[in-house]
């Protein structure tokens, strides 16, 4: 049970890291290229800590790479939000911001987890996520309230991504039990704080929440968007094409 919970956390970091890594060498300027790669690197590091821990609890004794690369698509439990493609820098920044606000609150809560190893991973990761949040929030402000073009692109990104945000606060049955045991964070309870911060940033960025609200979810249950399959095909390629080798 704890195993599945950790995988779910790890998958979010991994899939978002993979998306960001696609931008390496293609950023809008060298400085942002470096910053995005940095975030990707942090997230890979966080996912490794989580996969290594999950590996210790795994009945099949899989290592970090077997867990990261060799599961079928429906076993990935990441949020739909993080698997969405890099349609442009506005989508990249907004996806990052919505997730960073959540990741920050979630890790903050996990630092008090009764599971010591999880708490330690959260404490270490939280330092990095604070920096990610500062980066993504600043860019939401800059681009939202920059030029007419950047405003339009940001509003477009918000219109496309907002529907996925609600999934962050959906509690699975496993989470319910682990919350009772003082191990997991109750994501439902993070929502008001998250919403307050996000609303205030979007307002300052002169962006409007689209009508229609939150209506897409499924990643946490293994039902993904069409995008994940392609991401995995690329990410898993070497491990699938040349199984059981050391690299």
């Amino acid at each position, binding site marked *: 049970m704890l195993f599945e919970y950790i995988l779910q956390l790890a998958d979010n970091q*991994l899939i978002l890291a993979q998306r960001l*890594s696609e931008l390496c060498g*293609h950023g*809008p300027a060298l400085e942002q290229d470096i910053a995005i790669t940095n975030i990707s690197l942090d997230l*890979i590091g966080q996912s490794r800590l989580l996969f290594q821990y999950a590996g210790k609890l795994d009945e099949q004794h899989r290592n970090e790479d077997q867990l990261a690369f060799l599961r079928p698509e429906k076993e990935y439990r990441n949020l739909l939000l993080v698997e969405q493609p890099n349609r442009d820098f506005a989508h990249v920044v907004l996806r990052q911001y919505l997730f960073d606000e959540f990741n920050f609150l979630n890790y903050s809560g996990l630092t008090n987890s009764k599971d010591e190893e999880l708490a330690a991973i959260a404490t270490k990761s939280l330092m990095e996520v604070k920096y990610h949040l500062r980066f993504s929030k600043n860019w939401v402000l800059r681009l939202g309230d*920059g030029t007419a073009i950047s405003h339009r692109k940001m509003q477009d990104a918000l219109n496309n991504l907002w529907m996925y945000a609600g999934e962050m606060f959906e509690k699975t049955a496993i989470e319910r039990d682990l919350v009772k045991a003082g191990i997991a964070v109750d994501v439902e309870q993070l929502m008001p704080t998250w919403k307050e911060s996000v609303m205030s940033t979007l307002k300052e960025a002169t962006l409007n929440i689209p009508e229609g609200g939150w209506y897409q979810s499924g990643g946490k249950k293994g039902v993904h968007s069409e995008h994940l399959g392609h991401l995995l095909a690329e990410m898993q390629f070497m491990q699938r094409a040349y199984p059981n*080798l050391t*690299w």
Partner: protein
Amino acid sequence: MDEKELLNRFQAQIDAEIKIEPKDWMPDAYRQTLIRQMSQHAHSEIVGMLPEGNWVTRAPTLKRKAILLAKIQDEAGHGLYLYSATETLGISRQEMIDALHEGRAKYSSVFNYPTLNWADIGAIGWLVDGAAIMNQVALMRTSYGPYSRAMIRICKEESFHQRQGFDILYTLSRGSDEQKAMAQDALNRWWWPSMMMFGPHDSESTHSQQSTKWKIKRKSNDELRQDFVDNSVQQVKVLGLTLPDPDLKWNEERQHYDYGPIDWEEFWAVVKGRGPCNRERIAARKKAYDDGEWVREAALAYAKKKKAKEVLA
């Protein structure tokens, strides 16, 4: 002071191994040579991110993915220092980037070759970064202060890159037959382009003489290439792989390894734009730059707005 006297003082400073600094007088040709060489070096760091970037999303393990990303990020950092160091000569980053995109500035031709299998990432680290280190170690003593200092900073990271590249090949060379074949295939394709990184033979090199007198260049193309060959022949033994040159053999008299003829026709073809990936590399850089235009404009506009608000408040 007249030009001739200035020139004598300048040469005396160089001969005394005192670094030339941005505010010092320097002959225009010295400035132009440095701008050409340093911006070319900066562009190489940036374009060099692309062939390796081609494997980031397919890296076989999380650890390798992280190492590769960090390595490419280092190269972006090198590009940044080098652009800033070149700016001290009175040219802007914008002008340099325009020159790259318009084909007026060059970058190392080696990055116009494709990365076709995972072992290419090992071969690039070992051979391409290895060849770059040979050049850069020599440039740590170059006469222009900002360039020399940039090289000192960069060299530390480069040797790490080379070790990581070697480690990838070492792991493959101890793996399955398929992995060994990958590693050999990568060496076969990257060896000669790496040899060409040192440029034409000394007898053919147009810029060499003046650059040596001004101590911009501290070692000749052929001297550097020989050091590279001697090192590589030793290291490839550890890998149990073969360098694709049947003429490689120890020369007792010279105390160096002899090597076979370099295909200069191929070299010049790639320099002149007819390599396998020249168009793609520049197109990728231009696309990133053009796609980023609205982002850079918005950042500027936002900064202006913020400043205006502060003034009002």
